[in-house]
């Protein structure tokens, strides 16, 4: 599982930090490193590009997992360089950006767009497999999630828009319902397709969501 990110265009980043002359850079050693959006080499490249744009980089680091609360310690160890900066530019997913902001009084800006929670499918492809709807239904659908992988999130069956097994609306994607059909057929469970589906309970997705942990 990876939090999938992409780099924002440099022009957008420059506009975000327009008022800041001195910048502290933070990368992430987990997903953003794997995806080459915010690992060590990307942070160094960003440093070079910002310096070319006449910014001063007061320092940089790659925190092992920026979304972890240990980020507080990483920030504390680098207080001097961070204090010298006008802002912090974070090259991690939005979770990491928010974790940094929680432990710093400096303005914090994202250098990446957070796209989706991804799973490696075919080699070289990351696919969104779950939108965290809060009431997992994949037991009905051969462990393939139509809420996430059907362009319309259909629960009751295919829309009729598949062409050659691909989604009419997004031809780069397989039709989720054909995948469900083929897998159920292989499992000898095609009868599942005839079962009625209930309307989704979107109150389970009421934002913001929070879970209070109970001590063990």
């Amino acid at each position, binding site marked *: 599982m990876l939090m999938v990110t992409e780099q924002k265009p440099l022009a957008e980043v420059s506009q975000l930090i327009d008022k800041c002359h001195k910048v502290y850079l933070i990368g992430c050693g987990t997903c953003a490193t794997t995806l080459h959006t915010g690992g060590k080499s990307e942070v160094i490249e960003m440093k070079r590009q910002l310096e070319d744009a006449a910014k001063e980089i007061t320092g940089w680091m790659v925190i092992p997992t920026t979304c972890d609360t240990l980020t507080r310690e990483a920030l504390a160890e680098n207080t001097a360089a961070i204090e010298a900066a006008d802002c912090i530019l974070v090259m991690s997913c939005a979770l990491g950006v928010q974790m940094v902001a929680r432990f710093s009084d400096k303005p914090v800006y994202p250098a990446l767009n957070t796209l989706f929670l991804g799973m490696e499918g075919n080699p070289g492809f990351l696919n969104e497999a779950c939108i965290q709807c809060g009431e997992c239904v994949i037991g009905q659908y051969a462990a393939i999630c139509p809420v996430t992988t059907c362009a319309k999130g259909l629960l009751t069956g295919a829309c009729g828009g598949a062409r050659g097994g691909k989604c009419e609306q997004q031809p780069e994607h397989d039709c989720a319902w054909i995948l469900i059909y083929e897998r159920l057929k292989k499992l000898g469970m095609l009868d599942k397709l*005839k079962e009625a589906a209930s309307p989704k309970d979107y109150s389970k997705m009421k934002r913001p969501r929070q879970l209070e942990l109970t001590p063990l």
Partner: protein
Amino acid sequence: MSLQSSLESGKFVITAEVAPLKGTDTTEIIEVAELLQGRITAANVTDQQSSVMRLGSLVVSYLLKEKGLEPVFQMTCRDRNRIALQSDLLSASVLGIKNVLALTGDVASLGDHPQAKPVFDLDSVLLLQVIRRLNEGYDMAGNELKGKPSFFPGAVVNPGADTEAALELQIIKMEKKVAAGARFIQTQAIYDADSFAKFMKRVEGFKVPVLAGVIPLKSAGMARFMNKNVAGILVPEHLIKKMNEAENKTETGIQIAADLMKELKDICQGIHIMAIGWEKKVPQILDAAGL
């Protein structure tokens, strides 16, 4: 005779599609309504067809009704959540609209406002269940209605699915739609009566009237475009050739549609003409088909 009475008494029925335009000018819709009145049993009013923002299907359905042409109010789940869908259904009932065609709808990203947030709170099958519930006097949450509608709900099917899985999925879904209360079915455009006859054999057990979709061809290019881009549409090569060689493309297009309708007439209980800009030619097509 109403669409419901016609279908329930086993009559052969013609419906045609009317697409609201972008803007407030309803002149053309009124002209089309006047032309089609008496020639067809009911007119489907599309709901932001192809996700392109236009005048709404509810208001145009009402305008047709006022002009004496019975509407089929098409309703998609793309732009409204369950609250808005139910409310618009109640509004439709108050405006005297009986027929509702329940559709899921295309995704917003294909239309002219691709940045729009797609809703899809419900889908076609779930919407049919909601319509049935409203007819029974209750909303989706189980609250009792003060005054209930009496809708005649319909649904669609795409018989031209191109793989075994896609076709089986369509048939399973059609069965679900009928179980959820669909009382008539309109199909995607058919160009091959023989394969449609095979499809009809598969679904005859569902005991629901089926209206075969017909899209008149305007050119060979249009046929090729649909073959390439529209799921479930397959215009056979001989028809494309015929259109290509035709001196008068309009006449040939009308004749092909009419010939097709003559063949389809014996296979199902009606024809649904989707003229796509040729609404005013529908009477000519019907004349040519002897309908």
